[in-house]
């Protein structure tokens, strides 16, 4: 565990305590069984504790604690699979508006994100794989503003969202990095239809159709046609945020599995006494340690905002994604039959892991980026 400051230590302890008392896995199970994608009461508590404003500047009512702080909370929530808009609104949308938005947009939205009164999300994916450059959705210049037409998928908390950060094309063709523009669009704008996508992690994903949605010039976030590079930076923040959640997920999957191996008796002995299983756990423990090192490095690099951020984000999303994939697979394998049942929690972990792995670029997309970044 990293050497934490006193403030970070308090934050982590607070998150651990809240998660275990208020949001254990059983709480997620209850939410899932009810058909909801998150529990509004828990989201309210999260916001009241100030976590939604952790990357928001103090001027807009946040604590400006950075990803180092937010990452600790996301990791703890990852352990017990807490479903909430914290990641997409409190980290991703807040980071986007903070780094790309103008003063009016910051004033309008950051305060509301920080106090949890608004949920803002990204509407960027269109195809089967995350790829911002492949955006085809059109934003036609129309008088003083633009008309947006197209369909976005995999919009996180798209049903609950109060506003979307929509990526659309003001020029060029799918595949170009130039010509992409980001728009901040209130969810109640005319022409927006959203439907819930029932994904196997039971979280709030949506398909959002924009049918001639008219927005003013003031909806443009950043520069017209120049959204790609700044948005990718924001997405790297998001990728590290996801990796933090995956680390928590890995840790819990590992701990739960280890505990099971120490209690399950077969052949008159606990499974933990079998060397084949000991060695598998030793290897998983090794990878878990490497994953932790990668995360601690990544949150620091992101907060430092320097040249190392991109590589660190690629590493975090790619490497920790690989570890989460293996860990969640082994969780089921080592639990045997009970791991296959819906009644047991192991299934939650593999489902959540696979969604997180795919979100904003999977492992092979990250290794592709790694190779490109290193010029080979």
């Amino acid at each position, binding site marked *: 565990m990293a050497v934490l400051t006193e403030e970070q230590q308090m934050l982590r302890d607070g998150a651990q305590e809240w998660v275990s008392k208020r949001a254990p896995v059983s709480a997620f199970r209850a939410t899932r069984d009810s058909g909801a994608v998150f529990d509004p009461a828990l989201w309210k508590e999260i916001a009241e504790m100030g976590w939604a404003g952790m990357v928001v500047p103090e001027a807009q009512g946040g604590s400006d604690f950075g990803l180092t702080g937010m990452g600790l909370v996301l990791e703890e929530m990852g352990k017990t699979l807490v479903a909430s808009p914290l990641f997409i609104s409190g980290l991703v949308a807040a980071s986007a508006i903070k780094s790309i938005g103008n003063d009016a947009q910051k004033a309008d939205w950051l305060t509301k994100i920080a106090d949890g009164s608004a949920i803002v999300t990204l509407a960027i994916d269109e195809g089967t794989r995350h790829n911002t450059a492949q955006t085809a959705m059109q934003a036609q210049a129309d008088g003083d503003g633009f008309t947006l037409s197209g369909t976005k998928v995999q919009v996180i908390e798209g049903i609950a969202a109060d506003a979307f950060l929509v990526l659309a094309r003001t020029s060029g063709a799918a595949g170009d990095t130039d010509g992409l523009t980001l728009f901040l669009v209130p969810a109640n704008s005319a022409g927006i239809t959203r439907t819930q996508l029932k994904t196997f992690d039971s979280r709030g994903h949506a398909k959002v159709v924009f049918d001639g949605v008219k927005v003013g010039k003031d909806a443009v976030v950043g520069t017209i046609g120049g959204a790609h590079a700044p948005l990718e930076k924001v997405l790297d923040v998001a990728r590290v945020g996801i990796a933090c959640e995956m680390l928590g997920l890995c840790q819990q999957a590992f701990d739960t599995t280890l505990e099971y191996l120490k209690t399950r008796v077969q052949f008159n002995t606990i499974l933990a006494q079998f060397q084949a299983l*000991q060695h598998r*756990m*030793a290897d998983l*423990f090794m990878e878990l340690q490497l*994953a932790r*090192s*990668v995360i601690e490095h990544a949150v620091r690099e992101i907060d430092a905002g320097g040249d190392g951020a991109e590589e660190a984000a690629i590493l975090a999303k*790619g490497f920790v994604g690989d570890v989460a994939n293996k860990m969640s697979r082994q969780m089921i394998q080592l639990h045997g039959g009970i791991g296959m049942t819906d009644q047991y929690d192991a299934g939650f972990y593999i489902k959540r892991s696979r969604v997180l792995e795919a979100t904003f670029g999977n492992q092979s997309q990250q*290794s592709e980026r790694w190779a*490109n970044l290193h010029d080979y």
Partner: protein
Amino acid sequence: MVYQFVAGRATARPSRNAEKGRSKPMNAQDSQLAAFRAEAREWLAKNFPKSLTGKRDVLMDIAPRYPEGEDWAAWKTAMGDKGWGTPTWPTEYGAGGLSRQEAMILDDEIERIGAFNPIVGMGVNMLGPTLLEFGTDEQRAQHLPLVVRGAVNWCQGYSEPGAGSDLASLKTKAEDKGDHYLVNGQKIWTSGSMYADWCFCLVRTSNDHKHEGISFLLIDMHSPGVEVRPITLISGKQTFAEVFFTDVKVEKGNLVGDLRQGWTIAKRLMQHERNGIGARKVSVGELRPVHEVAKEYIGTDDQGRLSDYDLRARIARHQMWERAQRLTVARVVEESKQGPSEATSVMKNAGSVSIQTREELLMEIMGNRGIGWEGDDYLPVEIEQTRQMLQNKANSIYGGTYEIQANIISKRILGMLDHQ
């Protein structure tokens, strides 16, 4: 025979890439080594004249002579006084007394700033190691401090007109005259003898046995009866010379080892020589990220991507793993300041996976140039890489095997036996 003059590298060293690409040894001495690196860096920054940056070739070109000029002299004096020109020799001769790891770090730091070792020549490469192994205390005390300071030039008196590949048929004789040996004969291809102060020489002290009749003698080149005649090569250069010994008196204290032990010592010395020529044994992958080597051997497509896409992806995955492993080393160092870090237990296995994956990738990258064992058809760096790949298989065996480490992790850290 062609001998290497300089204790540097016979083979061109691959250009240095980002320091990040270096593989680091991983053990508890890490912080000590880091401290040494800082010390070396500081000392070099203070003492290496910037005007000499990148000028190693100037030295190589005129060795065994030494370039003139104030900065050149200052650099040699500084390194000589510090003893870092002969970093691993004992301090009692004024040498560095460094561990092998420290010496590698020093070498790294020297290279990092475009510096070089000014203490060069056969005294460093060949004579020194031989005296350390076979010499008397008097011989070491007389000769080593001068070598350490680069204050003496040595040459090697081995080949003769009739003794080339069949070196043991040499005829230069040393007769026992009671208090001294009387040497008569001729040596050839004696590199650097024109500038040499001393010669370590194979001489025949007995005719009754071909190999065991040979002894190892140190001869002062300034003695009466020594004549050096440079040989002009077709290039016009005079790198070699013939050396004639005519009734040269050599004190008996200059016999190294026992009488008749000369051949044994010569063979041993040739190993040092080969180490010197094999150069500081640079391998294909050393100092360079794997992908750089891959680009060279495999080539790229029109978008600059490695032509072998599967290999490209595996290299990326490996490098990410390697980075994660190094970040873990750094984390352990950081955490250990506060107390024991549980990540310590995974360091050896994580390191083994890293290095062995890397070596296997390099081997695959080199294709049929990666399977050479010896001979001129393969570059020395390729042969070294191949041997290093094999050598590093020991990495998951020594110091507790991979499986023993897994036992330790599962039992001591995860408590997988204590329970029940």
